């Protein structure tokens, strides 16, 4: 039996004293590729930010690998939504990917040969090695997303959390990202991914969490990905009964 690598118990999160997440219980199965789906304003990004401790919940518990501490976050590689970084920053593709290694570095210590090797192989995996000396501002949307996935790979974490990584990118990049995710799964990694396109859920993921403030259904795609469950989450604009 597989274990729960992330366990969320009775989570309540509020923005401006309005609940965005309500009594949410969920688990992330180890070695799964899990999609989070739900309508706009369902609290998907809020959920991810709570896991990353970017927001303080009102109540509830989040265990990562059985631990609640800040240190546990080191087991997670986080790929944020696009547009949250300073694109004018003078840095090359290789440099950005190397930033993934800083999780394993102390203060002042600089990346060594080993780190460079890891970064280069991550770039190769994302088919971006030819671009390693480009400035990030010169990349297309899809290429940028590849760089951020390469940075996440560099972190060498057990869990990957991504906020809509497939939003607004070209089809080649989309296929490449999915391929990479599947091959990382074979190496034992787990994925929690906010996903928008309901048509591709079945093809790309093996587990799914359907949410709207709280969980409506979660589990194996084959068991819970039914039109009944989807309708339930999407039709209720507000969850009042």
């Amino acid at each position, binding site marked *: 039996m597989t274990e729960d690598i992330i366990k969320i118990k009775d989570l*309540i999160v509020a923005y*401006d*004293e*309005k609940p965005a997440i*309500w009594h949410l219980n969920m688990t992330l199965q180890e070695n799964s590729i899990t999609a989070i789906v739900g309508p706009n304003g369902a609290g998907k990004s809020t959920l991810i930010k709570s896991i990353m401790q970017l927001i303080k919940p009102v*109540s509830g518990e989040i265990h990562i690998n059985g631990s609640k501490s800040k240190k546990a976050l080191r087991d997670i590689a986080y790929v944020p939504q696009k547009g949250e970084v300073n694109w004018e920053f003078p840095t090359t593709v290789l440099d950005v990917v190397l930033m993934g290694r800083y999780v394993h570095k102390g203060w002042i210590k600089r990346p060594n040969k080993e780190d460079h090797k890891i970064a280069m192989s991550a770039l190769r995996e994302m088919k971006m090695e030819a671009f390693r000396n480009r400035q990030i501002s010169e990349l297309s949307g899809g290429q940028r997303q590849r760089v951020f996935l390469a940075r996440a790979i560099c972190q060498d974490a057990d869990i990957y959390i991504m906020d809509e990584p497939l939003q607004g990118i070209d089809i080649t990049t989309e296929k490449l990202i999915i391929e990479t995710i599947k091959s990382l799964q074979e190496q034992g990694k787990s994925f929690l991914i906010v996903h928008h396109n309901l048509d591709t859920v079945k093809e790309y993921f093996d587990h799914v969490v359907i949410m709207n403030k709280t969980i409506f259904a979660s589990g194996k795609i084959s068991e819970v990905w039914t039109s009944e469950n989807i309708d339930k989450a999407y039709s209720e604009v507000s*969850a*009042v009964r």
Partner: protein
Amino acid sequence: MIEVLFVLIVASLATSVLGVFLVLKNQAMTTDAISHTILLGIVLAFFITQDIRSPWLIIGAALVGVLTVYLIQLINQTNLIKNDASIGIVFTALFAIAIILISRYADNVHLDIDVVIAGEVLFAPLNRIEIFGYSMPRALWQLGLLLIVNTGFVALFYKELKVSTFDPKFAYVIGFSTTLIYYMLMTLVSVTAVVAFDAVGAILVINFFVAPVLTAYLLVKRLSHMIFLTAFFAILNSTLGYLIGYNIDLSMSGATATVALIIFIMVFLFKPDGYIILKIKKRRQKKEFMHAMILMLMSEDEHEMISSKEIAKHFNLTRAETEKQLETLEMEGYIVKTDDHYMLTIRGEEFTHYSRIKYELKPY
């Protein structure tokens, strides 16, 4: 002395009517640049005319003001340097040239940088002019004219200014040049800044351009209302500045700028949806939310009887905070205490029901 007050009021009205559009276009710091670089224009024109009262000074300085705007735009168009950085570089470079020129050549002439920077409205009535048989301060005459010109400009091009401020793309589509409007505005800003600097000083003129506008902007949404409210604050600031400056013998433009900040901060803090009221509202909301959360927790079957310790642990609260919340809830009759445990009253039960509706939540 009353003439001094008039000069201040007219100066602040003439500047702030243009300032409305500068603030809305996010060009307030461009005024900062212009107000510094006109010094270069004054110096250059002074070298040519050798007369500090020459009208050429105004023209020369205004030209340099427009040139500053043009240079900043030109640099922006290359996409090499960010807008704010190019403002910072252009104005400091031109200002540096002005200072070097003054210290190199103007030591023996009477061009007092201090007066240019600080301005001294008290001297304004000394320099007089005859208009239709009336003797009045030259500054008052010039600023009065500019007030009419600027107001006329805003009235005449109100629609164009509005559209090019809020939706430049739309302005382009319906076929008038936002660039032309922009440079007309900036030319007037430069001329006004030059004429006003004599009275209020080159740096404080920025304050006259933007402070009344920003205060009005805090209070109203509509452009037309904003213009009238700006005029009100312009008069208020300069009158108070005048009174304070007069009574405790301070630089009047300095006092006006200080008053302007104080009034701005007062409005910022105390207006109906201002900082303090919002803070109080937030606190109350937070308290109410916490109350609702605790009551809802108690309405769940497994928490029917709950100790304050368990509540504290559940919400990550301190014991003292929890006790305070529970005390209020008990006083209001939502919960009752039996031994060490709390439980909901019927009233509390009802309250959770309404909270669920209020926060758009489904029953647990």
